[in-house]
């Protein structure tokens, strides 16, 4: 009888596993499975496996010493699985008696490798087919291996001892910075003082500060961890190491969803390091540091996952330090185009290349229209659909290296090779979303092709516009004036001589299908379309609902769209948790109805009498516009991000639609829906406005003008 031990760290493909176990059994093997994944949650599938034995290994190191848990946290998966499994006596016993030990997935390989040190007769294989082959090999020898002693070999034991000795300083540090110590104010302060003590060698200071930060984080002092790293960094003369420690500190807070207190210092340190490397001609390192500076400065936790962003207060001031860097200046130096673009041809249709990377949500009408246009030969290119193009379209660091090296990197050559054929074909390229692909596209000279790029809103909160050479873009299309204002205040190139022409063109929407009759009950239904991001701030709408319900309990709030994905970020998770808490009693009482995601917004809008925009910022709020087109009464929050600026929700929408507070919103709703007639009239006016300004037949003319007027 051949004894086989399977070790699995991840859920296997159960159908395949069941077949394989049958094959092992047919060869006279007895198969035992030890798993660190949760067996109970797959009980049904596991029951179909014809196993001789099954064993749940510890699923975590939760009940082990803190030092071990901290080590586990920084260890690779293979080591973590072994740390969980090592003390398990069932596993060790089975492993000692096994003829063949099989790792079913990469995470289990190290555990099998270690077990094989203790049972040196057994075959140790990775994968089911190799395991089966090993069993086949054994059947010729009677099915089992020649047993050696059951006592573990001396050298394996010696290696284990050596490993624990090697791990000693780390273990000591982890014990000295254990949770109880770090939880106490005295202990934490003591350690923080220690990392800045004079005369400590740089290497030791850096290592110590990392252990201290790790300990602080375990004690729940995330900001303390960041401070310890920043304090140590302040005493370190090496620019690279200093930048790295500050970066680590900032990231500790960011991963917790916090706005880091030392962001400016971390960015400044990365920029200083980038500048010194750039001056020394070490382009790769300079690009790496600049990449980190931009990454930190425009992290989504700061700008996207929260209700505000440092850009709301003073966008120009926020980026000023960035542009003081020499490396950044080199990056943002306009290269311009070698020749002006050629006017659109008059003797043949315009060759229009519409391109994006995966997100074509706002292109459907444009593609339908120009795909069937006698004056246009249309091609559509999804950069994300080709692995080569996708790779270059988002290669931020390589873009930086190219710009800092004066366009001599192999990135430039690759973009030339892969994208030039498209430029050669097209008279005009229309790139939707001014993100990575815009940086990629402007790496090379556009030849005589006209380049048109559209910037929606989201892009302004990312690093990409700072990595795009706008002097190689001829026309930049915005969806609203306030987005243009923000982009211009952020990106110096957009204020320079070589800035592209600006256009404001509304998003392409077919609003005619939204005009459907509403039942009288809809008057009391407030609606919100799209709640999947923190910036939509649905809690504001709940506040409004509660206010109107104080006057009349017939009011309800209907939420349309998918929920926020808590995996996006910790900040999103926390917002969602609070929102759910607020929502639970309201949903139970029927005051809030959640409809979830839908492909059929028009029919959902039939039930909605008042459409709300509760967002803290928007480019143009499509859901609100569609709601208005359906003859719901629009109530738009004066998006705080832009409120009070020359362009804002107030300048985008007709007077009366925009309100400054939940209180004002409630007032407007109560007035507009006071009687059915009043409500229907207000809705009718809103629909008329929406259809006359934003409907596709109107907007389509703007696109025709944009692409075809220039002949």
């Amino acid at each position, binding site marked *: 009888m051949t004894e086989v031990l399977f070790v699995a760290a991840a859920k296997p*493909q159960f159908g*395949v596993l069941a077949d394989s176990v049958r094959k092992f059994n047919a060869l006279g093997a007895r198969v035992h499975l030890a798993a660190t994944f949760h067996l109970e949650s797959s009980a049904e599938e596991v029951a179909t496996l014809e196993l001789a034995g099954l064993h749940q290994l510890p699923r975590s190191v939760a009940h082990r010493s803190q030092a071990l848990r901290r080590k586990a946290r920084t260890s690779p998966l293979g*080591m973590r699985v072994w740390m969980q499994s090592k003390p398990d006596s069932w596993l060790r016993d089975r492993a000692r008696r096994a003829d063949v030990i099989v790792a079913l997935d*990469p995470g289990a*390989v190290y555990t099998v*490798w270690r077990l094989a040190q203790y049972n040196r007769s057994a075959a140790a294989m990775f*994968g089911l087919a190799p395991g089966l082959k090993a069993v086949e090999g054994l059947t010729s020898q009677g099915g089992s291996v020649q047993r050696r002693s059951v006592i573990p070999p001396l050298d394996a034991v010696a290696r284990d001892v050596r490993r624990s000795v090697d791990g000693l300083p780390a273990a000591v540090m982890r014990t000295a910075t254990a949770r109880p110590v770090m939880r106490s104010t005295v202990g934490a302060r003591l350690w923080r003082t220690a990392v800045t003590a004079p005369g400590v060698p740089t290497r030791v200071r850096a290592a110590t500060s990392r252990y201290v930060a790790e300990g602080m984080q375990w004690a729940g002092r995330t900001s303390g961890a960041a401070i310890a790293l920043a304090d140590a960094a302040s005493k370190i003369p090496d620019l690279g190491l200093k930048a790295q420690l500050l970066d680590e500190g900032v990231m500790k807070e960011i991963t917790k969803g916090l706005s880091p207190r030392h962001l400016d210092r971390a960015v400044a340190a990365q920029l200083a390091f980038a500048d010194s490397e750039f001056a020394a001609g070490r382009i790769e390192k300079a690009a790496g540091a600049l990449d980190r500076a931009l990454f930190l400065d425009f992290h989504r936790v700061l700008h996207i996952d929260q209700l505000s962003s440092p850009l709301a207060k003073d966008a120009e001031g926020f980026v000023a330090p960035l542009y003081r860097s020499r490396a950044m200046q080199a990056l943002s130096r306009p290269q311009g185009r070698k020749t002006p673009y050629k006017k659109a041809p008059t003797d043949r249709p315009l060759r229009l290349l519409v391109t994006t990377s995966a997100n074509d949500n706002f292109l459907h009408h444009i593609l339908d229209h120009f795909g069937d246009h006698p004056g246009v030969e249309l091609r559509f290119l999804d950069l994300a659909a*080709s*692995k080569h193009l996708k790779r270059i379209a988002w290669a931020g660091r390589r873009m930086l290296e190219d710009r800092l090296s004066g366009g001599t990197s*192999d990135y430039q050559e690759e973009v030339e090779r892969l994208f030039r054929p498209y430029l050669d074909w097209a008279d005009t390229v229309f790139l939707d979303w001014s993100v990575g692909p815009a940086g990629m596209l402007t790496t090379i000279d556009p030849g005589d092709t006209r380049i048109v790029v559209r910037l929606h809103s989201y892009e302004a909160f990312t690093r990409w516009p700072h990595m795009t050479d706008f002097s190689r873009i001829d026309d930049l299309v915005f969806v609203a004036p306030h987005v243009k204002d923000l982009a211009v205040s952020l990106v110096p190139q957009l204020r320079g001589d070589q800035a592209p022409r600006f256009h404001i063109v509304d998003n392409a929407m077919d609003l005619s299908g939204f005009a459907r009759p509403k039942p009288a009950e809809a008057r009391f239904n407030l609606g919100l379309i799209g709640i999947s991001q923190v910036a939509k701030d649905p809690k504001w709408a709940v506040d409004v609902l509660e206010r109107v319900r104080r006057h009349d309990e017939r009011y309800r709030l209907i939420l349309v769209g998918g929920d926020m994905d808590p995996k996006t970020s910790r900040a999103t998770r926390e917002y969602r948790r609070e929102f759910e808490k607020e929502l639970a009693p309201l949903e139970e009482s029927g005051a809030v109805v959640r409809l979830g995601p839908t492909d059929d917004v028009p029919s959902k809008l039939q039930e909605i009498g008042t459409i709300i925009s509760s967002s803290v910022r928007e480019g143009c709020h499509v859901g609100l516009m569609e709601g208005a087109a359906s003859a719901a009464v629009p109530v738009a929050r004066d998006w705080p991000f832009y409120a009070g600026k020359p362009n804002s929700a107030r300048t985008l929408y007709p007077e009366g639609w925009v309100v400054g507070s939940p209180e004002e919103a409630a007032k407007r709703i109560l007035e507009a829906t006071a009687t059915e007639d009043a409500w229907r009239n207000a809705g009718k006016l809103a629909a008329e406005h929406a259809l006359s300004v934003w409907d596709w037949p109107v907007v389509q003319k703007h696109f025709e003008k944009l692409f075809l007027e220039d002949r």
Partner: protein
Amino acid sequence: MSASPGSGLPAEGKRPHVIYLAIGFPPAAKSSAYRMRETANQFINVGWDVTVVNVAQESWERDSGVDLTLLDQVDPRVKIVELPLAREDLETDIRLYDEARALNPNGWVAKLRRRQMKPFPEPNFGEWRTDLEQAVLRIHEEHPADLLLASCVPYVNLAAAWKLWEEKRVPYAVDFRDGWSIDVIEGVEAFGPDSEEGRWERKILDEALSLWVVNDPIADHYRRRYPDFADRVHVVRNGYDADSSPGRAHAPDPESGLVFGYLGTVNFTPQHLETVLNAWKAAREKEPLLANARFEVRGHIGNGAGREANRHTEILKQAEADGVHFGGPAAKAEVASIYAGWDAMVLILIGGRYVTSGKVYEYMATGLPIVSAHVVEHDASNVLSGHPLWTGAVGIDEEGLTESFVRAAHMAVETSDEVHAEAMAHADQFTREALMTVAVKNLVEEFTAKYAAQGARGVDPGGTPAAAPETGDVAPVAEKSIVAGGPTP
């Protein structure tokens, strides 16, 4: 002079000798094995000695697998040298891992690939360079070669071809099959002319006697990229082996259920497979003729630790309820009988206009209806165009494929014997033997025209005969096993 002009026959009783770098030669169960086997056999047929260089059988066992029946039709005069080389990334014996690899198997392999790129710019194979170079030099010393033919992949073969040219002036030709500087799947250039790969390709092609590729779009790519070399680029299509053809179409029996089949390596994405199987399911629900139909999938899935234990295998397993059955790899000798039991073929292919694949020819030769599950703009569409029992290319689209399955079911039961015969005749032009006979004959003629007339076995750059190979201690090709052919000289 070792070859007389035009015939390739030996002068003065000596047979010319070609070293054929054919990693993937039988018994490797790779799709390229058939092309390689026919190429070697055709060289024998025109009077040449052939030494095939392959890697050890054990290496194929953990790669794409082994099919010993493939050796049956290798001409016994073909000498096979197996080098003890293996793909390190596919090692599955954990005892051979160092601690770093055991800790992070995937990360270790990623690092390995970077390291392998140093000697030659090709992941997984770059480190074979020295062994291959030394092997061809040793073989040449033992049995002087007149020509070397390098079949790629792996491209590292080119380094060995170059070495023998550089040191011994043995001319070489290249069979790129799918091409190197073109990514046939995505249809874009795979690397630029100034990259390391680009420099290698240019250097190799500058001196190459001839370049074979499998279809016109790839040939056009090479002619465009190297205009000076354009007249040396030849299309040598893959074709099919006459003995894989069932001979006549199977008589369908809808009562006991029609049988659709796919035979080939499962190299497409899980999504692609899911789309085909969803369409299959929908077609079974929709079309009474398919209600009790089966869909058999045969071939190799995955390699290394993932052999027959990957997502594809699981998807196939889940589809068993819809009459889908995965029957594992098929030995070459079984192929004709497998086809004989099927009523329609499902042609699942990756890539686009640059990809033909060998399968399409074999499928055509069955004379059965063919459901195309590949993009519309695919070279297979060109080959199949005019085939009377082809459902047409509808793209990898669930609804379109559902209709294709329905159409194929009707074709299977409603088509007359004459039409089946007509469908089989459509493939006649593509028997592998016919195609390779011409290809090898042309190559020998090119060789003769350029070198043999100069009386050279080994030609110097100026075209004058080089010195005869050095005599003295000849390193035996001892550590390699000879698995077919006559005794080692």
